[in-house]
């Protein structure tokens, strides 16, 4: 248990006479943990030379076809299945009949080739995705402590809003960075508008590393999402457009930054993303 960093431990015991969330600093020695200083942020400082090594990325989607050449293997494939009244997460073959998750995984692999990829299938499974499978899969991914969770999906069902909001807050405090697709239609959907997740929509430029900060959120960033060459079932490729494809670009950029600066907190990562964005970074500061 002590091997776990503070942000991954269960809530600590209370001290007599001390408020539950207070810190008895005169009684308890301060634990030393690694911190990252943010230097002058340029794109080169942020991710120059990084390849995603050491970072675990979870793709919550329709599954991932591990044999696709653009995916190049994955480390783990899980499925969410119903067990009586519960939804449980179980190992499964790394396949993807629909191809949506494989397409997302191929974008991540292109930008951050050395990340460890895990697939959790929360969509498909004989019918369209259910909110309860999504909640169970996301909860599992947060418990497992993935560094980055890619969610190229959203639910428009209001009844899942509260539970999703709690989960994304939990992820934020455990340093699991959730990167989620903003909706490109005028509908209310979740979790992308939550402040605890990094939300992504599309720009129409061709460069996979170019992204913009949106000074008028809830959409926070625009990443490449138009005519993107992605994996398609059966080892093939296809050109696709949509926020679903912009999201893995941003997730992969997060993975690059974290692989170079592993002790960044989610709020620091957001600052780095902000400072290195195309429309924010000093022109001479770019890589």
């Amino acid at each position, binding site marked *: 248990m002590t091997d776990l960093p503070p942000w991954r431990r269960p809530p600590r015991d209370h001290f007599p006479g001390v408020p539950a969330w207070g810190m008895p600093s005169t009684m308890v020695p301060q634990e030393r943990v690694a911190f990252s200083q943010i230097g002058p942020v340029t794109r080169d400082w942020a991710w120059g030379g990084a390849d995603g090594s050491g970072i675990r990325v979870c793709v919550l989607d329709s599954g991932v076809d591990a044999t696709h050449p653009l995916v190049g293997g994955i480390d783990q494939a899980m499925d969410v299945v119903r067990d009586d009244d519960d939804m449980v997460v179980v190992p499964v073959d790394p396949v993807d009949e629909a191809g949506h998750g494989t397409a997302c995984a191929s974008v991540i692999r292109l930008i951050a080739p050395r990340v460890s990829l895990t697939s959790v299938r929360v969509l498909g499974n*004989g019918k369209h995705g259910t909110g309860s499978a999504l909640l169970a899969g996301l909860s599992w991914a947060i418990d497992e402590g993935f560094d980055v969770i890619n969610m190229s999906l*959203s639910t428009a069902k209001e009844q899942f809003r509260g539970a999703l909001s709690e989960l994304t807050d939990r992820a934020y405090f455990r340093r699991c960075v959730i990167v989620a*697709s903003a909706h490109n239609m005028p509908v209310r959907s979740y979790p992308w508008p939550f402040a605890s997740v990094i939300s992504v929509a599309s720009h129409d430029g061709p460069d996979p590393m170019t992204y913009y900060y949106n000074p008028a959120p809830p959409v926070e960033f625009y990443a490449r999402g138009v005519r993107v060459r992605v994996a398609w079932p059966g080892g093939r490729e296809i050109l*696709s457009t*949509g926020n*679903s494809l912009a999201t893995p670009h941003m997730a992969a950029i997060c993975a690059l930054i974290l692989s170079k600066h592993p002790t960044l907190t989610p709020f620091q990562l957001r600052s780095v993303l902000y400072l290195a964005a195309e429309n924010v970074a000093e022109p001479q500061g770019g890589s």
Partner: protein
Amino acid sequence: MVLVNSSGLTQRRLLQAIVEMARSVYGAAAASVFLLNQETGDLVFEAVAGEGEGWLPGTTFPAGTGIAGWTVMCGQSLLVDDVSANPQFARDAAESTGYLPQSIMAAPLFRDDGECIGVLEVLDRDSRPRRDQGDLESLGLLATGTAEVLALLVRLRSLESTHDDRDGADAGGMPVLHRVADRLPAASEQVRATVTRLLQMAEDLLADDAAGSGRPDA
């Protein structure tokens, strides 16, 4: 018993008007609305303008396949290009629709409660310079209106089905009767006459049966 779904005709005409409009706006080869079967996840063509409009309505796409399947799963609108460069996809599409598109654009249709009930799809838009992102955004706007009409149609069918059940109809035969009622107006004169005759025979048979053994359980 409602043999012809007359009260649904307005909604069907509205749906047809929407796909005609979508086809015209994008200068597309075809535009269609799918209804999602909530039990199986299959997608059924409800309205088609352009390629396949004569015979596609009523046919089914299996759950989770194709771009429409992606759209239902992730709840997002999507666009794919160079589809026909993909032999397997082309064959699947040809077998199910009889038409090979180069590009497909699709948006999910949401009911008020956030449930996805269908998909609006546009094949091969090509009348203007390419505007992938803008086109996808306008498709989203169009989808919002389409969803309202589709939701109305679904609600109406459900009401009629309840009404028919109360009339003592055999619930097991209702889906067939609905499909027949839906397709009858579009059938050729000869087929329509034959189907009407068959339905009259069925009604006579039921009337005889009811007279002989009392009404079946309601």
